[in-house]
């Protein structure tokens, strides 16, 4: 075990996590919301994120908004403004990069940073570097962050969760046992409820119980990813920071809810068609093609009906996918049911350069169609996304996704400055009128 080691921080890994990030961004945009229960996700009908004031009232992520209104009538419910959230996210990365170039952009609201060896450069201790990063983030972004500092990513994650919101927890390796003894297995990054239940059946309930098992025990009972987690809990780096960022995708999914819900087959299909077009656009941007897809229709009672389809050859062209989906659609769609969302997932994505020719020339035919979509992508680059689209998506494209109050759009989309267009805004967060 590495705990007897003389160093508290053989490596110094920092995990930075925005507190209720989307809701935090909304408060940063409009500081008069400070101290109030703020919730985002109005257009989805469920809570995407909420402030700690809302959490204190029992509001949780994923909760339906009508439940929220019953629980906390004074809640301020806002539509998501992903453009602004991304701006704040990039600022977060940029501020952390002032202190170290080794930053992994792990998610829109969190990142890892390796500050090993930076004590000498900044002439302060690791915990002070972390405190300084936290101060910069909170001052400049106007929202709070929770930070964890430890020898590995898994331990740093335990640190950032330790005290929320606005906490800073340093876990020197020689004190790690104190934290691990108080962390149930399912709160460890990468261990899910099922694995935790399985571990509990062998008497392993806390992260400390797990760490005390030897390697042979872990190897015999768990798969490789858990061996890595076990090593990380010991203080040994098994998961290096990924500094390259996303290079590719294994799958791409596009899902959209629409209101009012619909019984009309054409309307539902058109929503699905739009999702397929969007998924294909993204796949083509990454030069990927899908050999398999799955699609679903979600009914008003939140159940999913779908199916999995293997394509004759990998493709990122909506025609190829729609052909298959159109054939399978009648088996999934039930007349009279009320549908509220559709979704498509492109699975097992491969490089589009690797597509093999087939015997009957259908790939060849698809190739010429590919030229058409190359032109479509060029037109979109110049005139904006969806400058041209398929007839089957017409209904979904020409009507707003949400009618009624869920159709509420973020303020930024309406308050334009001279020279801005609906599709192109200045890349600076907007704080409203003054």
């Amino acid at each position, binding site marked *: 075990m590495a705990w007897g080691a003389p160093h508290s921080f053989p490596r110094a890994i920092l995990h930075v996590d925005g507190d209720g990030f989307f809701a935090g961004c909304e408060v940063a945009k409009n500081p008069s919301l400070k101290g109030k229960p703020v919730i985002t996700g109005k257009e989805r009908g469920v809570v995407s994120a909420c402030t700690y004031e809302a959490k204190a009232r029992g509001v949780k992520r994923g909760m339906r908004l009508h439940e929220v209104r019953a629980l906390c009538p004074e809640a301020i419910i806002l539509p998501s403004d992903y453009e602004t959230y991304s701006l704040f996210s990039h600022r977060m990365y940029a501020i952390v990069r002032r202190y170290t170039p080794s930053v992994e952009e792990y998610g829109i609201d969190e990142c890892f940073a390796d500050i090993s060896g930076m004590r000498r450069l900044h002439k302060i201790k690791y915990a002070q570097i972390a405190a300084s990063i936290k101060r910069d983030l909170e001052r400049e*972004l106007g929202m709070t962050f929770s930070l964890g500092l430890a020898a590995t990513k898994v331990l740093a994650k335990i640190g950032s969760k330790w005290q929320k919101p606005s906490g800073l927890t340093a876990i020197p390796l020689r004190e790690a046992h104190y934290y691990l003894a108080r962390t149930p297995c399912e709160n460890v990054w990468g261990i899910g409820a099922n694995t935790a239940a399985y571990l509990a059946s062998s008497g392993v309930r806390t992260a400390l119980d797990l760490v005390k098992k030897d390697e042979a025990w872990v190897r015999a009972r768990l798969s490789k990813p858990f061996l890595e987690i076990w090593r990380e809990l010991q203080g040994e780096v098994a998961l290096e920071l990924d500094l390259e960022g996303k290079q590719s995708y294994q799958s791409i999914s596009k899902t959209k809810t629409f209101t009012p819900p619909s019984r009309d087959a054409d309307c539902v299909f058109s929503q699905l068609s739009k999702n397929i077009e969007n998924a294909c656009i993204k796949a083509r941007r990454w030069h990927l093609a899908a050999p398999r897809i799955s699609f679903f229709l979600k009914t008003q009672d939140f159940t999913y009906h779908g199916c999995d389809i293997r394509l004759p050859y990998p493709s990122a062209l909506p025609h190829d996918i729609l052909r298959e989906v159109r054939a399978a659609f009648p088996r999934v769609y039930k007349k009279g049911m009320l549908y509220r969302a559709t979704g498509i997932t492109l699975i097992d994505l491969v490089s589009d350069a690797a597509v093999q020719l087939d015997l009957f020339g259908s790939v060849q035919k698809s190739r010429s169609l590919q030229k058409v979509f190359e032109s479509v992508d060029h037109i979109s680059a110049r005139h904006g996304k969806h400058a041209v689209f398929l007839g089957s998506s017409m209904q979904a494209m020409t009507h707003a996704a949400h009618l009624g109050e869920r159709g509420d759009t973020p303020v930024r989309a309406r308050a334009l400055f001279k020279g801005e267009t609906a599709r192109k805004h*200045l890349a600076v967060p907007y704080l409203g009128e003054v």
Partner: protein
Amino acid sequence: MYETYKSRIISFYKKNKRMPSYAEIMRATGLRSKNAVYKLVHKLVEDGVVSKDATGRLVPKNLESGVRLLGLVEAGFPSPAEEELLDVMDFDEYLVPNKESSYILKVKGDSMIDAGIMPGDMVVVERRASYKPGQIVVAIIDGENTMKYLRVKNGKYFLEPANPKYQPIYPSESFRVEAVVTGVVRKY
């Protein structure tokens, strides 16, 4: 970008009378990896600007004709335009020098009209650790954004408009300054 990199490599050659190493190209161009330098060199070789010797080191080939000339050269003096362009900034840098802490707002009222801030203008603001009297600041009073001069009298802070139509605001409770105005943008 390519042209800038090329000119940096050329000026290295002129200064040092030899071609730079990959590490030196990284330093001269600001490229972050040798892989990026490799790609740049590959392009330069393709364009016939440089070539590689048997050991892979760079050899100058067609450096002179590769120099992009800006402006007309008269009486044999080289145009200084290229060198001068290295120390310029774009509007982004000029208006928003501290990118991470800057925000924009739209001006609604006319309370700062004598400071040259009109209704409809865009103001650029910065969040800072502390604010000084004399600055134009954005503060929140009764749940509303307000933009005024920050003043201090007998140790008490207050907000002063730049329009004789309005009275100074002496906040009864403590108030928070959210940001300081660093610029005004108006397009016609």
